[in-house]
């Protein structure tokens, strides 16, 4: 990490100041979303299958990324080669971050909030994850996925708004939560700053799950109880305010705890919006019931 900080001072495309092209690339402004791809991943040609069709000057671009480019060649192609190297690195990156080691690196970045935080007020600055809308380059720019409201947002800064979404891919955030269920964000409470938090919170969650477990003889009653709990507990202090829902816990009914904004005029709900929100909550309740029934069966 200290290497990145030092290299923040280096500017321009001159790679003399950095040890490698990758570390220069990662430290230059606007590339904060990218993580470092291990060199042996890049050097394994199997991982690059098909990319030679996507990238012009593939061989030289690959040489540039791996710091094996002859200086003479660099003079001729420098301008276009830089663009091609970025494209190649981005496409390798999309493949890398869905591997076990890549996911682990991205989890660290996620916990540091490197991808920004959810602009939705009721997500309480939940850290985001980058995601593409398509896996083909030059189609759509990168978006940010919030694991709490499960929605997509545009990056705040235009520096990030111009990054190609294909460098992260459509799969990445969802695979991450599939592989690391322990860091699925809870739907209620403020996300704790920093990780490694949660002895007490985890216990609270376990206790909560005990109460919620033994699924579904009278799900409606339990739902009401839970909603009552939510009404009593202000958003910050709620149990489960860890950085994840925790391992082995059910997520069937988490949506019931999600906070939502209710538009009001002089304290009264707006008729049409209230109607839509009731409909949405009925959809939610139907899904929760369905999931609880499924869970009880297993």
């Amino acid at each position, binding site marked *: 990490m200290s290497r990145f900080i030092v290299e923040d001072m280096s500017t321009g495309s001159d790679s003399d100041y950095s040890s490698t092209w990758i570390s220069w690339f990662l430290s230059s402004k606007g590339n904060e979303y990218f993580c470092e791809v291990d060199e042996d991943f890049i050097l394994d040609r199997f991982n690059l299958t098909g990319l030679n069709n996507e990238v012009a000057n593939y061989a030289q671009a690959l040489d540039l990324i791996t710091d094996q480019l002859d200086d003479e060649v660099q003079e001729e192609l420098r301008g276009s080669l830089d663009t091609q190297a970025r494209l190649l690195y981005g496409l390798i990156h999309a493949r890398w971050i869905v591997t076990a080691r890549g996911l682990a690196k991205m989890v660290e970045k996620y916990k540091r909030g490197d991808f920004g935080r959810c602009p939705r007020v009721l997500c309480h600055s939940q850290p985001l994850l980058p995601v593409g809308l398509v896996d083909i380059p030059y189609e759509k720019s990168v978006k940010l996925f919030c694991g709490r409201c*499960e929605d997509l947002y545009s990056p705040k800064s235009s520096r990030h708004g111009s990054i190609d979404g294909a460098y992260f891919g459509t799969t990445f955030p969802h695979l991450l*939560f599939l592989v690391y*269920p322990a860091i699925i964000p809870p739907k209620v409470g403020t996300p704790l700053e920093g990780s490694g938090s949660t002895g007490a919170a985890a216990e609270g969650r376990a206790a909560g799950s005990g109460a919620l477990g033994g699924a579904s003889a009278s799900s*409606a009653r339990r739902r009401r109880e839970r909603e009552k709990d939510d009404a009593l507990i202000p958003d910050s202090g709620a149990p489960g305010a860890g950085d994840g829902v925790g391992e082995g816990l059910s997520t069937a009914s988490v949506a019931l705890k999600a906070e939502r*904004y209710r538009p*009001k005029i002089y304290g009264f709900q707006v008729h049409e919006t209230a109607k839509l929100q009731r409909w*949405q909550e009925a959809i*939610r309740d139907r899904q929760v019931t369905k999931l609880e029934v499924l869970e009880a069966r297993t």
Partner: protein
Amino acid sequence: MAVGDEDNISAVDDAMEEQEEQDDGYTSSTPTSTLTWISWFCSLPGHEYFCEVTEDFIEDDFNLTGLNSMVPFWKEAMEMVLDVEPDEDAAKIPDVSIVESSAEMLYGLVHQRYILGRAGQQAMLEKYEAGVFGTCPRVYCIGCNVVPCGRSDIPGIDTVKLFCPNCNDIYVPPSSRFQGVDGAFFGTTFPHLFFQNYRESAPAPFWKPPTRGAGSTSPPNPRMSPFSNPNPYGGQKRAAGYVYVPRIYGFKVSERAKCGPRMQWLRLRPESAEELEQVDWRGRWIEDDEFGSEDEDGDDPRMLEDFDDGEGDEDEESESEEEEV
């Protein structure tokens, strides 16, 4: 955040001092002095969301009812906001900066009331249509314009937020310069009254996805036809209704997975207005035997609350008029 606030406030102070100097230096005959305190205040960085309250609105005491107990140095603050020459005994004020913050508070609270009236709504509509408040950060709201919104009507609780009429949700402004602006200066009611008044800017609560495949032949017609909401009191704009579907290697993540989708309901819209009627005032499905049976005892407190709140909007417009009189 705290740092941002301080920066903001100090920037405001600096600018205010400049203003003071200007006022001292120039007499009323110079062109620069035509800049009133109000238009100067609204031009400060971070104050882009404010509209200019007319002086006659502030001069009408009825519009200020109750505010004098909330603003210290009321008289001096009024003089500052209205650019009235201070009285001779102004010397008893300990510090000009105190009056400045009082003036800001006064203006903010008057602003909260002003933008609920006809003139204020019109002024905010112009800013809205010019895109001054920015757009929704949510990708599938497709750049829907947002309006400023408070989470409380009492000052000092929370900073200004942005309300998106398409997803009916509130967002943190993208720039930190708005973190020094109190949400109460816009209030909780404004955005919703605004979209009641200007229904053509309010997205309707239902959305039909454009039919795929046949897109080239028949459906251009419904797309071209003017959109209308059967509810004349509802939003008259075609909504941006697409909801994000998470996929892993092209396959939808099953809702049976632990990490499966749980929140799509939050953004979902029915395909037609009639579908909204399938849910009763307690939030239960009408004529839905499969799921209706388990909810038999209908004493849910939350549902009752919804009922109380839901029907109260018939009087809104008349109430808004009162602010102006």
